[in-house]
């Protein structure tokens, strides 16, 4: 740095050297302060190029580079083509097993004018166990036709007994109408018949008479539950 030619100002080159040294240090300090002390102040991304225009950058719709790509899962294939109404299909499949000829369905179908209704005297024959008969107090269909159940009330040895039977139960062999109510019941559930003043009492006598008549009748007795609605016609034909 110091040149021997300038002997007139011996300290001249030293002054110059000092100035340079100070400038360098200042430059260095500026770098150090922005980089090392405050890294958060540092720009994350390289500064835009000279010809950068923000409006165009938005149009390009660039993702941030640090972002993870979210996988897009396609929607599952619709099952509507495979089975339009699965619950209906299940019900049908159950009915074909439990009620092959549709007699039980017809006996309680709302469209059937001769259906069994609350107030009728019904006789339920069971596969294992004694038959039960009684006044139908209620016909319950909860969610599906397969859940249909009937509530029968009778008096056995002067004790009131009520029983629910599932209409489509495999244990139920047949449901037959013994006697119809003369006038249609004005309620869907005849729970008032539990009160002693409305109780019809034992229907055993009616059922016994009907059974006797049936056994004295012709051979068509077996399939009676299927066409129990034609009971009156049957009777007329027999006599």
């Amino acid at each position, binding site marked *: 740095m110091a040149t021997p030619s300038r002997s007139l100002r011996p300290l001249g080159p030293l002054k110059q050297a000092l100035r340079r040294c100070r400038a360098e240090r200042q430059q260095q300090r500026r770098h150090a302060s922005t980089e090392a002390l405050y890294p958060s102040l540092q720009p994350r991304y390289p500064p835009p190029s000279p010809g950068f225009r923000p409006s165009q950058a938005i149009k390009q719709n660039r993702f941030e580079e640090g972002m993870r790509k979210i996988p897009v899962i396609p929607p599952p294939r619709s099952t509507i083509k495979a089975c339009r109404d699965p619950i209906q299909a299940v019900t049908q499949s159950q009915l074909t097993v439990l009620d092959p000829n549709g007699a039980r369905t017809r006996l309680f179908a709302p469209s059937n004018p001769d259906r069994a209704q609350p107030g009728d005297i019904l006789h339920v024959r069971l596969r294992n*166990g*004694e038959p*039960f008969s009684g006044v139908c107090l209620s016909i319950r269909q909860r969610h599906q036709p397969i859940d249909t*159940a009937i509530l029968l009330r009778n008096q*056995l*040895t*002067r*004790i*009131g*007994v*009520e*029983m*629910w*039977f*599932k209409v489509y*139960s495999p*244990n139920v062999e047949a449901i037959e109408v013994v006697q119809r109510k003369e006038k249609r019941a004005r309620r869907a559930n005849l729970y008032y018949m*539990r009160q002693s003043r409305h109780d019809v009492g034992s229907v055993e006598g009616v059922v016994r008479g009907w059974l006797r008549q049936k056994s004295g009748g012709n051979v068509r007795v077996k399939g009676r539950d299927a066409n129990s609605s034609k009971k009156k016609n049957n009777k007329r034909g027999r006599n």
Partner: protein
Amino acid sequence: MVNVIDNSGAAVAECVKVLKMKRHARIGDRIIVVVQKQRNFGPESGGAVSVSAANKVRRGDIRHAVVVRTAKKYQRKDGSVVKFDDNACVLINKGGEPIGSRMGSVVGRELRDKRWSKILSLAPMHL
């Protein structure tokens, strides 16, 4: 209060304990009862002497009994539900033999599953 349906002499009893259970009793469960009302056999069957002779239990007696009917609905394995109009029991001794020799009315069929066949055979009807 439960009706007593045998001819032991009690008419109405009160349940004070359900045995081997921490809940309500069902058909076929063994309970302890206190006899609350005695059965009188009517004027034609004799005087007070014959009544006391016929009655094997007295009012206030503590006896074992078996529930044979419940007014609570009970659902069976096959889906059918049975419900009686009253609660009824049959008095038994400590060994499980019924005290009465005859029974008046219908009993539940669950007695068979609980091995009370003697009561079932005495009953006029079971359901």
